[in-house]
């Protein structure tokens, strides 16, 4: 008796109840739908099927074929059996119960049963299932298996092989989700043991997830093990503060000290994953190095502790003085990308209402005033959602190393590629994403615009509808209507594919092939790196990107990444230059020349992040007043006159807005027990001291105001933010259904729209790529070292951040610091040979500004003529080489005396062999 189910739905009976589920559903999932929990160990909905643990066996009967007698039901694993109409499942059949009991018995005979000292105790599926389904007593009279205990798989993850139940969740995760099969089972059968390949330490940035997946205590966290019991922990739902992805997390603390961070499921953002930076880098919150109270510069030139009233009073008086003496334009405010929305909003109000300066920016090193270069085209900076990538037929990554920049979003891109999306990676240097790319565009550093022009020219040559697959195939959707690209042809102004190929260094055939791939793909999506937004030619890039989107069918395909935990939030909260205001980079440049007299820095370590360390130092020295809100006494803070002790994001209540524009709530995981105050409170009180009270006493008041006040959040005013967050949009860009109505952005070659410094590079040392701007917006860009070829001496420097650098927020987590690479300079083989450098030697990398000594990595990632140095590793940072005023950074690389190299220090020990510990 089967109820008629809609097509593609299947009705079956589970434990006497009829259940209707989509065809293809696994029995275990169908049972969950019906509210019946079938116990599992190896099954995980995010991983491939293993059928290994046999825990989920149920008695499953199939309806007999017509005219034949019914066959007796069979014991089948419900995690590998898909529903069929009329199937009868008995999850509690006596045979199934006996089989489950025997599985638990088999699992426990060699398990050490050390629950009282096991980290997993209390949150362990093996423990829970043993209680629920296992035998009452042990019949095992033999010797238990002995195996590795306390064996590190990396500095972060520790294995207890004796506890392992060999469910293959960890190995499947590593092979399937990040695609980094660094783990496998070695030996066979009873002797199976988990090891890393060649017994080398795991290098993956996602390895912490295997601790969550492990259904027993075999895999534990080096930073958490033996430090707490689950029932001792306090939990707070929060959002990760380490990158713009905005992964949902739970902050677990014990006695007000952060114990660990766990991912929290949000299918729209991080699914259930978390990268290792987000998971492990939380010790800074409870670090003894934290600033505990405000500091004020004494007459002796040393910072000394001060009370809040003194610090606030001093700051207010001196800011007021400068404002009156030099005018409000002599004040620059930088910061906010690592602060909560509430802090950003209060800071923006403080800057505009109390300081009355237009010089406000959250983007360190930015050269242009437009924080969102797509706003000119009626678009948001990010116009899709993370989830949209899963239905994209093609994905373009332009000038970004998304693996390092937004690691958990990379997992979703990777999933899309695994399901058939075509990946196109355009970057001056090979990235992790290249491994999966269909096309790799290795362009000259800074030549993004030429690449885009080439793609547009190729599309004009051979319009998209010619590439569309015949509609019969697949049978879904109509072919794209022919688009009139004559306007685009005009906008291109006669640039040909060959021109673009010459300028960019990418072969014309490749550009044409990429254009054809894009034109033939459904819902292509384009992601541009965060560093492109702050470049001098950002407006030109935006126009070209919008045209590319338009030519492919939807201008909303264009998305810019952002930097910092809350870069998008800071932008939406108004931490952007006002009309005539200076960008962050310009503020520092002018401060160095003494034109800006006061710097207000909110959580921005400009000495490390401004793309010219020497200039930043001058700025701090020449400014009459430097006020900071900080967590630590950073090198920048040592130059400050007043440093307010702020609270960190895990200590805050409030909201964050991630790169896609999703506003998410975060709750305080630990209280600040020192004299730290939230940033919104600091500026609110400072404002009051200056006679312009903002009137905030609690974070919720700021939240309420900012939701009501800011256009992007207007629809949220007065609402509760749901747990999965809400996408905030400034521009309600409706794509016109009429293809001819596409507005083609003019692509006029010439100086950058800001008019300021057209051809300057923007090598900002935060995240992003291709910051050497080789005058891409000029019609015939100068071709520096690249074209001068071997013997010209210099190499173009490319730099961006590794996910894991020895940053203030990482350094207190010593285990994670072990994963930080030793500072290095990466060279192409032929350049290395020419320069007489071998892999592993030390080299001095220098410009007229300064030099660093790093170990040489010789590989094929950089093309000839280009070298790479990460900008968040090593002391001094690579920004000592950069010159804000000059175009593309050309560096000299030469062998360094060995002694210099040793003195340079080795902060990272990544790659160390996982020692056997017992």
């Amino acid at each position, binding site marked *: 008796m089967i109820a008629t189910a809609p097509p593609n739905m299947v009705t079956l009976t589970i434990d006497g109840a009829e259940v209707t589920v989509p065809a293809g559903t696994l029995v275990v999932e169908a049972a969950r739908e019906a509210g019946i929990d079938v116990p599992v160990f190896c099954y995980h909905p995010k991983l491939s099927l293993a059928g290994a643990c046999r825990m989920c066996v149920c008695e499953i009967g199939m309806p007999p074929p017509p005219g034949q007698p019914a066959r007796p039901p069979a014991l089948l694993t419900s995690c590998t059996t898909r529903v069929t109409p009329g199937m009868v499942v008995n999850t509690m059949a006596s045979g199934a119960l006996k089989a489950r009991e025997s599985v638990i018995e*088999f699992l426990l005979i060699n398990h050490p049963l050390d629950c009282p000292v096991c980290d997993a105790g209390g949150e362990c599926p093996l423990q829970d299932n043993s209680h629920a389904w296992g035998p009452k007593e042990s019949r095992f009279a033999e010797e238990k298996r002995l195996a590795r205990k306390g064996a590190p798989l990396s500095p972060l993850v520790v294995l207890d092989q004796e506890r392992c139940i060999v469910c293959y969740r960890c190995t499947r995760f590593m092979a399937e989700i990040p695609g980094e099969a660094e783990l496998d*089972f070695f030996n*066979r059968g009873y002797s199976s043991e988990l090891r890393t390949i060649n017994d080398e330490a795991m290098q993956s940035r996602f390895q912490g997830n295997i601790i969550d997946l492990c259904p027993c205590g075999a895999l534990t966290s080096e930073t958490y093990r033996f430090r707490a019991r689950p029932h001792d922990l306090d939990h707070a739902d929060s959002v990760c503060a380490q990158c713009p992805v905005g992964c949902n997390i739970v902050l677990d603390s014990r006695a007000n000290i952060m114990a660990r961070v766990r991912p929290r499921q949000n299918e729209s953002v991080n699914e259930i994953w978390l990268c290792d930076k987000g998971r492990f880098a939380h010790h800074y919150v409870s670090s003894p190095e934290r600033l505990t109270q405000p500091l004020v510069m004494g007459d002796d030139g040393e910072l000394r502790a001060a009370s809040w009233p003194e610090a606030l009073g001093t700051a207010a008086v001196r800011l007021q003085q400068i404002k009156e003496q030099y005018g409000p334009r002599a004040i620059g405010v930088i910061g906010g990308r690592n602060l909560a929305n509430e802090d950003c909003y209060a800071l923006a109000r403080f800057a505009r209402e109390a300081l009355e300066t237009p010089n406000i920016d959250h983007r360190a090193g930015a050269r242009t005033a437009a924080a969102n270069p797509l706003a000119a085209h009626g678009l948001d900076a990010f116009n899709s959602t993370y989830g949209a990538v899963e239905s994209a037929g093609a994905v373009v990554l332009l000038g970004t190393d998304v693996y390092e920049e937004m690691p958990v979003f990379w997992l979703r891109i990777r999933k899309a590629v695994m399901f058939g999306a075509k990946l196109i990676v355009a970057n001056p240097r090979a990235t992790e994403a290249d491994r999966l790319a269909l096309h790799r565009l290795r362009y000259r550093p800074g030549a993004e615009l030429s690449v885009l022009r080439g793609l547009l020219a190729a599309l004009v040559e051979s319009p998209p509808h010619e590439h569309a697959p015949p509609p019969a195939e697949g049978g879904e959707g109509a072919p794209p209507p022919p688009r009139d690209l004559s306007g685009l042809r005009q906008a291109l102004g006669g640039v040909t594919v060959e021109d673009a190929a010459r300028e960019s260094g990418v072969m014309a055939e490749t550009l044409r092939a990429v254009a054809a791939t894009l034109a033939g793909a459904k819902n292509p999506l384009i992601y541009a790196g965060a560093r492109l937004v702050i470049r001098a030619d950002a407006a030109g890039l935006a126009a070209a990107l919008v045209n590319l989107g338009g030519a492919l069918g939807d201008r909303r395909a264009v998305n810019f990444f952002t930097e910092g935990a809350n870069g998008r939030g800071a932008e939406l909260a108004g931490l952007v230059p006002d009309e005539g205001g200076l960008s962050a980079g310009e503020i520092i440049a002018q401060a160095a020349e003494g034109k800006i007299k006061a710097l207000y820095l909110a959580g921005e370590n400009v000495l490390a992040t401004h793309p010219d360390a020497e200039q930043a130092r001058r700025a701090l020295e020449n400014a009459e007043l430097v006020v900071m809100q900080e967590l630590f006494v950073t090198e920048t803070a040592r130059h400050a006159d007043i440093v307010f002790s702020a609270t960190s994001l895990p200590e805050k209540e409030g909201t964050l807005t991630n790169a896609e524009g999703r506003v998410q709530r975060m709750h305080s995981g630990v209280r600040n027990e020192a004299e730290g105050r939230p940033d919104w409170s600091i500026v609110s009180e400072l404002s009051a001291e200056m006679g312009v009270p903002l009137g905030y006493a609690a974070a919720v008041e700021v939240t309420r105001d900012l939701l009501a006040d800011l256009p992007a959040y207007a629809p949220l005013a007065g609402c509760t933010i749901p747990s999965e967050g809400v996408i905030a949009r400034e521009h309600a860009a409706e794509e016109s259904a009429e293809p001819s109505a596409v507005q083609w952005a003019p692509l006029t070659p010439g100086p950058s729209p800001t008019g300021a410094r057209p051809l300057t590079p923007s090598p900002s040392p935060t995240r992003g790529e291709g910051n050497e701007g080789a005058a891409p917006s000029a019609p015939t860009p100068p071709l520096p070292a690249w074209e001068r070829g071997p013997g010209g001496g210099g190499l173009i420097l490319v730099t961006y951040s590794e996910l894991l650098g020895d940053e203030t927020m990482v350094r207190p987590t010593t285990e994670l610091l072990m994963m930080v690479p030793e500072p290095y300079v990466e060279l192409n083989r032929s350049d290395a040979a020419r320069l007489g450098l071998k892999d592993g030697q030390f080299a001095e990398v220098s410009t007229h500004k300064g030099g660093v000594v790093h170990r040489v990595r010789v590989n094929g990632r950089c093309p000839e003529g280009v070298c790479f140095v990460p900008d968040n590793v090593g002391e001094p940072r690579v920004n000592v080489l950069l010159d804000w005023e000059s175009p593309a950074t050309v560096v000299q690389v030469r062998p360094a005396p060995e002694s210099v190299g040793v003195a340079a220090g080795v902060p990272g020990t990544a790659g160390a062999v996982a020692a056997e510990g017992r």
Partner: protein
Amino acid sequence: MAQTPGQPIQPAQPQRGPGLPVPWEPVLSAAVGRPNSRDIDDYISRGGYDALKKALETMTPQDVTKVVADSKLVGRGGAGFPTGVKWGGTARNPAPRYLVVNADESEPGTFGNRYAIDADPHMLLDGMIICCYAVDIQQGHIYIRGENLHGFEVLEAAITQAYQKGILGPSVMGKEGFGVDIYVTRGAGAYICGEETALMESLEGRRAQPRIRPPFPIEVGGGLFGRPTVVNNVETLMNVPHIVERGAEWFAGIGNPACPGPKLYTISGSVNKPGMYELPMGVSLRDLIYKYAGGMQRDQKVKAVSPGALACQILPGDNLDIPMDTATLTRPPYFIPPFGPVGFGAGGIVVYGEEVDMVQIITNIAGFFARESCGKCVPCREGTHWMLDMLRRIASGAGRPKDLEVLRDVATNIAGRKTLCALGDFAVNPVGSGLRLFWDEFEAHVTKSSPARLLEPAAAG
């Protein structure tokens, strides 16, 4: 015969086949002992590759599949699946398809493939190419047991000759549009690789562990590199040229009509002339032992028999009239719950005389399966080793009376398709049936009368 708990085997009225055609001429092992039999010219001089020629010139692929189906040839690896049905099913699934030959013969007591490949490698290639023609396959893989280096070299040499003669390559025997390439891959020493899905995992370069079915190998997603794949045993394919050559009726008339054809029996244990004997399917155990294998050593009585090497259930020695074939030994009364069919495997018969201590034998067998368990699924990984530990203890005289019940229960917990692949059942077949048949012997080992206990009183606990 001790009365033991469990279900005793009812003496069956065996279904006797027509018996030996007189005079019986070996078909598969005709070249054994012949000088130069591995050479392609010798094979051709014996009428080799005529069947292939006949198939290519006078038959459609469907005809070939039909004649194989009509012959009622069933797989010789042990599962006994009708070969024609497998081929037809694979051919219905989309190309590209593959042929995989399972030559990973690695069960103690089974060595028919080894002799057959050594004597007549071209007969295998002949059958493979015919299969490729019938199922429209361009690529065949032979997965040979790593330890059988000699067989690997013989096959490599044979394949080279076949390419030189144009029998392999882009157009087989000049047939336009029909090309076949054959590759030989050596295993690395794992019994699990004889399991067809684990074999394919290994062939693909991964850790050899069985896959989940469905999808089955003949389906998209289930076979080699995810493509529909015919997996056949060496001996199965060696029958094919003869079926094509002499017709389905000839084949179906040999031996037990339910699973007809010639069979390479390998017999070992306490017999006087262990070795390989080619006989029609369904020859009786008595004939095998006394007529061909020279009777029992020292004229012992037959105590027990492993009818298809070690993975099958042990049969008692009191009924020697059982026909030894797949059909008989997989159906009632030789289907014994909860362990299922007694099984015939690949026809490797191990005979145990009455001088043998069955506890030691079963301990030894359990050791093999515990060592060879791949470890993917829990009952087999943990259970086989637990059984081995208990058996070793019992065999050494340190067993306790209650161990036998635990042992039987553990075996029951693995048996009956509770594991991912058939190896779980294989591992408990000898233990479960051994306990049932020789409970007295086991009991003697765990009581004071145990000879082992008398030798090692300290071990008694």
